[in-house]
């Protein structure tokens, strides 16, 4: 009898697992609220990868989006190529410094954006692991919540019937009513090809009962 897991020593099943279910769900909520809202998107960096939506938004917001179209106007282009070094040599030097630091800032902003996307992907992956944790383990935790007392059986057969003792049971089938820990009674019907003398009989019953229980939890 592996309960209660002698390798982990004496604490009983409920104490170990009861809180898991809530904790896993709390963690899922904490993780997922942020990412599944539509507003969670990344800032677009420069005109070329700005999609139209964000340019429209910028134009509506404060018209600066229009300045991104200066490349399409010759006279605006000429402003960009005005050379003031004749009257003020320092101006051009300064402007070159500004442009190189501006390009550097844009480069690191782009890198930062990529890292943020990787970070978000990491969060999504962690969120997926939490979901897996929930699917793999919540049923154990829920069963622990059902356990009122330390019974030596985690599966307790209460009734076995066949067509001869219960006409509602189809011919050749076996109906087994059982409890998992202190769950509500679960009824399992085993087809004729797995008779009660078959060594696999109780494994089939237990497998069906667990499937039924986990299905019920998911619903």
């Amino acid at each position, binding site marked *: *009898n*592996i309960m209660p897991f*002698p*390798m*982990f*020593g004496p*604490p009983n099943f409920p104490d170990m697992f009861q*809180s*898991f279910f809530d*904790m*896993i769900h709390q*963690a899922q909520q*904490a993780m997922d609220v*942020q990412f599944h809202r539509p507003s*969670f998107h*990344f*800032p677009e*960096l420069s005109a070329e990868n700005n999609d139209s939506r964000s340019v*429209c938004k910028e134009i509506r917001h404060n*018209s600066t*989006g*229009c300045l991104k*179209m*200066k490349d*399409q*106007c010759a*006279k*605006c282009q000429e402003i*960009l190529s*005005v050379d*003031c070094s004749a*009257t*003020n040599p*320092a101006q051009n030097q*300064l*402007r070159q*410094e*500004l442009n190189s*630091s*501006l390009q550097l800032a844009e480069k690191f*902003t782009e890198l930062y954006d990529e*890292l*943020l996307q990787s*970070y978000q992907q*990491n*969060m999504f992956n*962690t969120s997926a692991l*939490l979901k*897996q944790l929930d699917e793999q383990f919540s049923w*154990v935790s829920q069963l622990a919540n059902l356990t009122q007392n330390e019974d*030596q059986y*985690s599966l*307790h*057969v209460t009734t*076995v019937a*066949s067509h001869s003792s219960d006409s509602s049971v189809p011919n050749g089938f076996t109906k*087994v009513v059982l409890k998992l820990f202190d769950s509500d009674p679960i009824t399992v019907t085993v087809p004729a090809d797995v008779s009660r003398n078959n060594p696999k009989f*109780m494994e089939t*019953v237990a497998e069906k009962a*667990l499937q039924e229980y986990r299905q019920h939890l998911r619903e």
Partner: protein
Amino acid sequence: EQEVSERELQEMSTEGTKYVNKEVKNSLKELKQIKTLMEHKNDERKSLLGNLEEARKKKEEALTDTKDAEMKLKASQEVCNETMMALWEECKPCLKQTCMKFYARVCRSGSGLVGRQLEEFLNQSSPFYLWINGDRIDSLLENDRQQNHVLDAMEDRFNRVSSIMDDLFQDSFFSREPLDTFHFSPFGSSPRRPSFFHSKSRLAR
């Protein structure tokens, strides 16, 4: 009338119990595997945070240099002013026309209001802003603000999750190694491993 004897029911319960216990054990193994995967994800996250911090520093440095150069340029922006103003008077109508054409074609909503707003914006703007790429600088500053907000939001979420997972993996049997069958050490004395998501300092705190 009972189809099987009490003894048979007990035998069946024992058989069924073995199967359920095996399934519970399998779930525990799965749980441990997921825990390991989450630890790897968390290590990955920490290294990403380090890279983000490095990129942030370089970005902030370049932004500071940009703003310094902009300030110095603004200090003597009257230079070339006439040339620029003359060009600006011809640049504005083209800019307005190009922008409104784009807006009507792509954005489809309310171009009247946007047109008046743009007119006002262009009349208040100076060609100097264009000359120093003021629009690109403002875009970067806006991006910078948004990126900080995005990371803060993600970090906040993750910290909540990690404290819950710490509890889940710390205070239950995960913090104990499976005991070998000969020696039984009471759970309380098992050495507490560093907490799940944070370095030891978290335990100190």
